[in-house]
């Protein structure tokens, strides 16, 4: 991973590649790697230094799995500059800082970028060494579309990972 700071937009995939649907963020970030004008970064563990990974004049989209009780593969876009995410204290320990806390740290340190959008995807399986579930895999083209629209990028054709497409979007 190398973050090319001169690039105007940054796609960050958050999650553990070895834990089922948690890999959706890294998988989507990989799809943007090498696209013109787009920097990518995969954050697989502790996120404490996340705010050091972007520049203030960058536009940033973070793709991350969520577990909210929504229907599997539901996609929720969140404007992280406009909304404060609830911080789960259990995700702040000596082993790491979670996404909401990392963004709040950036806010306190005045290190937020020009745009910060989170594309959250409802995940259902986090088993060690597990694969993406069928629902989340099938939703990947729609997730990519959300990222492109958030960043004003031209569409790039992405094949669904499975035959059927069941994803849906919830606007918040």
């Amino acid at each position, binding site marked *: 991973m190398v973050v090319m700071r001169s690039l105007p937009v940054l796609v960050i995939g958050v999650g553990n590649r070895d834990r089922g649907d948690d890999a959706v963020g890294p998988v989507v970030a990989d799809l943007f790697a090498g696209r013109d004008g787009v920097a990518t970064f995969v954050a697989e*563990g502790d996120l*404490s230094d996340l705010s*050091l990974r972007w520049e203030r004049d960058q536009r940033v989209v973070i793709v991350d799995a969520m577990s909210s009780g929504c229907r599997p593969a539901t996609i929720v876009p969140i404007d992280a500059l406009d909304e404060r995410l609830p911080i789960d*204290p259990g995700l*702040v320990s*000596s082993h790491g*800082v979670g996404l909401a*806390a990392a963004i709040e740290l950036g806010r306190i340190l005045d290190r937020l970028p020009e745009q910060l959008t989170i594309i959250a995807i409802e995940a259902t399986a986090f088993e060690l060494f597990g694969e993406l579930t069928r629902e989340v895999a099938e939703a990947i083209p729609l997730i990519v579309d959300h990222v492109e629209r958030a960043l004003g990028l031209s569409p790039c054709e992405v094949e669904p990972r499975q035959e059927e497409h069941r994803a849906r979007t919830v606007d918040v």
Partner: protein
Amino acid sequence: MGRIMTDGTVEKSTSDNVEKSTSDNVELHVPVLARVEGEGAMHVKVVDGEVTDIRLEIYEPPRFFEAFLRGRDYTEPVDITARICGICPVAYQMSSAHAIERLCGVQVGGSIRELRRLLYCGEWIESHVLHIGFLHAPDFLGYDSGIAIAADHPKIVESILTLKKTGNDIVELLGGRPIHPVNVRLGGFYRSPSRTELGTLVGPLMAARETCEELVRWTAGFDFPDLEQDYEFVSLRHPEEYPFNEGRIVSNKGLDIDASEFEEHSREQHVAHSTSLHSTLVDRGWYHVGPLARYANNFDLLTPGIQELAREVGLGPVVSNPFKSIVVRGLETLYAIDEALRIIGSYTPPTEPFVEVPPRAGIGWAATEAPRGLLYHRYEIDEQGRILTAQIVPPTAQNQPTIESDLRRFVTDNLHLDQDELQLRCEQSIRNYDPCISCSTHFLKLTVEHQ
């Protein structure tokens, strides 16, 4: 009997949420001990002003890594055991690699050995800095988290994050990613970095050095509770270098053994109140592993500059107050930075990034120094390289009896303290060790019962 309920994670105990009893019989209940990794509880019982029972109760389900290593190929523990921990996967990779290489009669030297030390430097920096900033410093400053510190001390927190990122960058460059590195294999690495690639780390490391010195001075100015114990400090000791991967297992009280002798000298036992085994030394009892132990056994192997800084901030060559481990972690971080710069400065890429490690039947042992202390591995494999047995003794299992001993001593000496203060200090006593109860969930409950 009074019952005290407080959420130690999001807010410290205050008199507002404490139901005080006017009698000597009080039960103090903390559903979540903040910022500690894993599922567990703490029970402290005081009868007539005397501590009668202290238990660190770990109820997180066992994960059976040793069992499911059986039957796997001898090349796999490097990757499988790395998943045991999200903050110290390098330690698991190194202990497993060294044990199996020893079993197979292979000793890795030269540039590959240096790269392994460099990888360990990255992990120590990541882990120690996260501990200092997000686990331990909030206790001394009266905040509930590192995030809360940021509001009042933004420059310090930004420095901590920058330091942490420097450690991440080392692990990512050598390991392929910042957690659970994928570039490590038996005999070395799948790919070795170029001099130019390693050179990109020099600037950040030089800046990190200055930041780290400031961090050491900052933490040394904290107000430390009084607690000194006559610990048996157990760590690796190498004749020429502050230990990461190699050395004999020694103590400040005369223990001096090879890793192959470790199980003859230590005992793991089940206790009713914990799903984690408790380790003790045969005929010697509980012992202490981690930064204070390494420091006590290897002070002379720190660089002269770090020894001088230690003296400047008031530390001698042995530190027996566990609350001061935050300062020692800072000194070890500084060592890791210096060592990383030394390795990068003299680096010549190896001809091949790894040496072959052909299987042979036998038993291999190794201990390396995880950020939290000695991490012991043993493997037995057959002639095809299939694993027959595996044994892993992590630092937290070794420190559990020591944590309980610290608590007993601290509570005994401080029964006069206000309930809130006693509770906070008990939690802090646990956090001194940064116990890693698990890497998956975060829950710990503290109960203090006075009768």
